[in-house]
């Protein structure tokens, strides 16, 4: 469905997308996961032909994004980060205009508009002006608009950015419904780790314009090779002993807690507690956040920029 080869975008001095190679198959729900400014939106804009790559190219539905932009555009749907409907118009009118722009044939137009409105649950509010819609409704209208012309590839750029937890949950349900009912390839970007985990069957973690990991959410989490254990030691003397334990993979100090990556935590926690006197112990399975932090911190060591703590504060939310 999508084949990206050596895709690169350079803005004066800044390498926003750095030689990305990637293949995304039919009916995949692929997540591009990374912090703000990692280059996710730039990739989407290039794939949607809104932005010319500095070098490299990509095939979307078999069409080249540089040589055949019009064909690419007819075959994709896209939901931008910020809602882009005209809020003076009603939801229905916005869809009607885009049905014309995408050349949805006249015999199908009304039927299709009503069916996408039904799919996103906006049929009853279709004749209200968009300015009266909530943030979640606007986002759903964008999805409906992206679906009008039955695209085979759908891009969702931060589909839940700025939504409250309730609307986000609803949005996730709509996206899942989409996958089931419309049978399309979905590429979504997000900086919410749990969103990627919940929706995607494959994830590319992107940082500083590079894909630094590519796998299923489960495999990415397994790749850490352990669980996350958090303790608060009463004395810091024993800390060095912990570092030397063979099953402790990684030690960080976060807000006065010691956070460790521990192989087979269930078995090894008692042993850790023999080495250090702790106020409390918490442990959990790793999530994508941990995967990202591990990979990103490795990157930082290589490039020697920024602090891990700073990054943790930024992405850990």
């Amino acid at each position, binding site marked *: 469905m999508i084949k990206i080869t050596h895709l690169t975008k350079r803005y004066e001095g800044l390498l926003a997308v750095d030689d990305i190679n990637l293949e995304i198959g039919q009916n995949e729900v692929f997540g591009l996961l990374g912090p703000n400014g990692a280059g996710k939106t730039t990739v989407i804009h290039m794939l949607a032909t*809104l932005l010319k790559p500095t070098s490299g190219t990509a095939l979307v539905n078999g069409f080249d994004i540089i040589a055949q932009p019009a064909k690419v*555009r*007819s075959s994709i749907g896209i939901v*931008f980060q910020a*809602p*882009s409907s*005209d809020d003076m118009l009603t939801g229905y009118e916005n869809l009607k*205009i885009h049905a014309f*722009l*995408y050349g949805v044939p006249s015999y199908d137009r009304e039927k299709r508009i009503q069916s996408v409105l039904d799919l996103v649950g906006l049929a009853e509010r279709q004749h209200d002006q968009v300015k009266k819609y909530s943030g979640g409704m606007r986002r759903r209208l964008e999805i409906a608009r992206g679906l009008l012309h039955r695209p085979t590839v759908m891009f969702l750029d931060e589909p839940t950015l700025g939504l409250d937890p309730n609307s986000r949950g609803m949005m996730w349900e709509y996206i899942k419904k989409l996958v089931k009912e419309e049978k399309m390839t979905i590429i979504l970007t997000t900086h919410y780790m749990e969103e990627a985990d919940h929706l995607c069957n494959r994830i590319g973690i992107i940082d500083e314009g590079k894909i630094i990991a590519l796998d299923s959410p489960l495999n990415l989490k397994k790749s850490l090779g352990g669980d996350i254990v958090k303790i608060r030691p009463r004395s810091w003397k024993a800390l060095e002993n912990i570092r030397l334990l063979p099953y402790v993979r990684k030690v960080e100090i976060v807000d006065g807690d010691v956070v460790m990556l521990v192989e087979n935590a269930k078995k090894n926690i008692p042993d850790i507690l023999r080495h250090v006197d702790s106020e409390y112990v918490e442990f959990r399975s790793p999530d994508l956040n941990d995967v990202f932090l591990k990979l990103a911190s490795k990157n930082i060591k290589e490039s020697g920029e920024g602090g891990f703590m700073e990054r943790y504060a930024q992405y850990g939310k």
Partner: protein
Amino acid sequence: MASSISVFEKVYALWLREFKVFLRERSRLVASTFTPLLWLFVIGIGFGSVATLTSEGGVGYQKFIFPGIVCMSVIFTSVFFGSYVIWDRKFDFLKSVMVAPVSRGTIFVGKALGGMTSSLLQAAILLFVGAIIGMPYTPYGIVEAIVIVLLLSFALTSLGLAIGSYMQSLEGFQLIVSFVVFPLFFLSGALFPLENLPPWLSILTSFDPATYGVSAMRSAVLGVGSRPFPLDTLLLLVYAIALGTAGIYSFKRMKAV
């Protein structure tokens, strides 16, 4: 041809959006009709009490400037319509149109037709007011007036859209445009006869597309233009084609994101 039908439908869709927004923003219509009326009734009557025009058949100052005020409304509405490109970009609507399989030329034409429609509706209101103040209309003259409004508004909407496509901020647009619309208006001969001007001013007025609009409008509704109506119309058409081409070019090079 299926493809030409679809281009027509796309232009229609883009125009329809502009038209609906225009109808819903009533304050816009009221505000932009108010200024021309102020000119017509305050300046028109105020100056009319002191100015005696020796040329133009002695119709009185208010009737003399009426065609100019219709053109003024077209100048301001059309050029300022370019600011909607900046609004569309700000609210990402433009991005959603540019990611659709629609050519930049089509987007430009749809937008320009929207601007022409608002100019035409405003001119229609003013022409109605003209009937009240006793302009000597003929049915043929009204048709001519509409043709002039369409040509002038296409030329100047194109100019406004071209400027808008280069600007990032509304403030910047307004600044640039105020350097454009006031010379267009003042040099057009809307407020004074262009005969007997010093040569330097006379040359400047001849570069102003609105000069030909005002003169043609005066032929149409007053029967006293500076040039024959067909000549003015032809010159205006040349401007319309040139500015339209410039507008399409500007839209083609405009960045989507």
